[in-house]
């Protein structure tokens, strides 16, 4: 390491910037979790103090669990997120493999077309999507959400994964071909394990917007049966009265699953980097 990057003022400066950013990023999250454990009076009386024995109250959580069908909403969110993630990763990786591995006419044009979706927000097509879902009788089903989120996640997945797939050794794939492996086996058994770190990156990028989305559940699947957590939390958000305890508790609970998924994928990220591959 060079002396310049080790110098004291630089280290302090870098840490100061990073710490400031961490505080700014974490502040709202901590505020939400902190206040979710307080009584209504506690929240409004002193919103910035942690819960004290006097203000500590689980009323928010009991409301959330007691009222509405929150376990069911959680289940819906989880089904939609995991299923969309699965399809985005599967189809994204397959398309990326085809684009990076095979020479065919229109290859780069096809790649460009698939990447176009990164630049055009899918929400612009909401009306058309709604009409499509109505026509195919998919309104108020989780399938509708899964289809939309898969389409939303694919462009970035194809873009990132095809870059990584190009780096997988040609020799390895050719060795598989000489040993008589099918193209599918080469893809699933040889290439996919080697691009696992990039799959984890894509998974994280794809998962969080899906979990947090309010737009499409509100439009495509607002029924009680298919409500997701973010939509369910709106229940407590009234025009005149808002149940802050319940909202904060619901949001705190909603952070958990996505946090767990993130931890799983980030471990994959590190493990992928350290595993031995070709050389």
């Amino acid at each position, binding site marked *: 390491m060079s002396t310049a990057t080790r110098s004291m003022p630089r280290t302090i400066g870098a840490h100061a910037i990073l710490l400031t950013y961490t505080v700014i990023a974490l502040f709202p999250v901590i505020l939400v979790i902190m206040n979710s454990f307080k009584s209504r009076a506690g929240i409004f009386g002193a919103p910035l103090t942690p819960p004290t024995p006097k203000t500590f109250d689980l009323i928010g959580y009991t409301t959330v669990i007691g009222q509405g069908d929150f376990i069911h909403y959680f289940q819906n969110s989880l089904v939609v997120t995991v299923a969309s993630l699965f399809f985005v990763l599967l189809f994204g990786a397959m398309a990326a493999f085809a684009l990076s591995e095979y020479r065919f006419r229109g290859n780069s044009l096809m790649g460009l077309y698939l990447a176009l979706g990164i630049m055009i927000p899918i929400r612009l097509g909401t009306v058309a999507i709604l009409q499509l879902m109505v026509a195919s009788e998919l309104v108020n089903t989780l399938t509708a959400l899964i289809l939309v989120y898969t389409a939303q996640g694919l462009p970035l997945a194809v873009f990132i994964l095809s870059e990584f797939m190009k780096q997988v050794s040609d020799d*390895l794939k050719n060795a*598989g071909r*000489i*040993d008589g492996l099918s193209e599918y086996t080469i893809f699933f*058994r040889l290439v996919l394990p080697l691009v696992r770190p990039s799959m984890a990156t894509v998974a994280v990028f794809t998962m969080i917007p899906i979990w947090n989305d309010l737009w499409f559940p509100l439009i495509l699947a607002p029924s009680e049966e298919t409500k997701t957590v973010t939509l369910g939390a709106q229940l407590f958000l009234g025009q005149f009265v808002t149940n802050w305890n319940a909202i904060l508790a619901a949001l705190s609970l909603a952070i958990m699953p996505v946090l767990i998924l993130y931890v799983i994928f980030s471990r994959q990220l590190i493990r992928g980097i350290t595993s*031995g*591959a070709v050389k």
Partner: protein
Amino acid sequence: MGSLNIENVKKAFGPVEVLKGINLEVNDGEFVVFVGPSGCGKSTLLRVIAGLEDSTSGRVVIDGADVSATPPAKRGIAMVFQTYALYPHLTVKNNMGLGLRQAGTPAPEIERRIGIASSMLSLEPYLGRRPAELSGGQRQRVAIGRAVVREPKLFLFDEPLSNLDAALRVNTRLEIAQLHRRLKATMIYVTHDQVEAMTLADKIVVLNAGKIEQIGGPMELYNSPANEFVAGFIGSPKMNFVDGARLGETAKTIGVRPEHLTVDPKSGAWKGTVVHAEHLGADTNLYLDCEKAGLITVRIFGVYDAEPGATLYATPDPAKTYRFGADGKVLK
């Protein structure tokens, strides 16, 4: 049971013609080395033989059967790659056995063949390990073992020693030579290193810019190169080429190998100044800047003391001087 015929094979990537009509015959049991500078098409030719690339036109015939449209796994070949290309998630044993399992070979037979190959390559202690737990030389031996267990008609080696360090390269080269002697199999070996070509080959194919320049045994190529390219490519250090006009010769270029020049401090054909001297112990390479011949290399066997700046006379051996015409071909 392991002959190969290549008939007028051409390969183009878009407008770029990489192979411009290759004709080659390899007999059963031969060790053939493709050698040439990078970009000459030698690896592409090997890939066409393996079936990893389709040729644009021409036929590849293995053992009398046209395999131009046969997938790689069905051609009866095995290939060893420069980057080893071992399956990272499989143990050494499974790496070697995968091809046979795919082909539906019974398990006891696979066991038997892995046993033979691993004892031949002293890989027995490592059978349970994964590639990540092996050194570079061991990995390349596993890759060779993976080829051996398939008992192919044709072994293909794609620069297998390029990723190994110098000492290991010599050892592995020796192992490949012994393997060829034991299996008596047909082997095709691609390298850019002419030392590997000279030491291993029964027959060397020198390629340049998608064409075969010359085919012959190592000594044949060394002693009677067909043209300037082969003369310059085979032999190390490289042959000296001198403009014929400067020497008052009729030939366009005069070629003389560094080892076919003698030096004397007092008199000789070409007067020159020592630019640099490389002392290798067994021999000494002198770089001389000659008045008539330009910069030439002289290889002297044994130790020879020469300071840079000293004046020396170099004299070529007239019996071992090559004369090339304007088209680069040797003049008889």
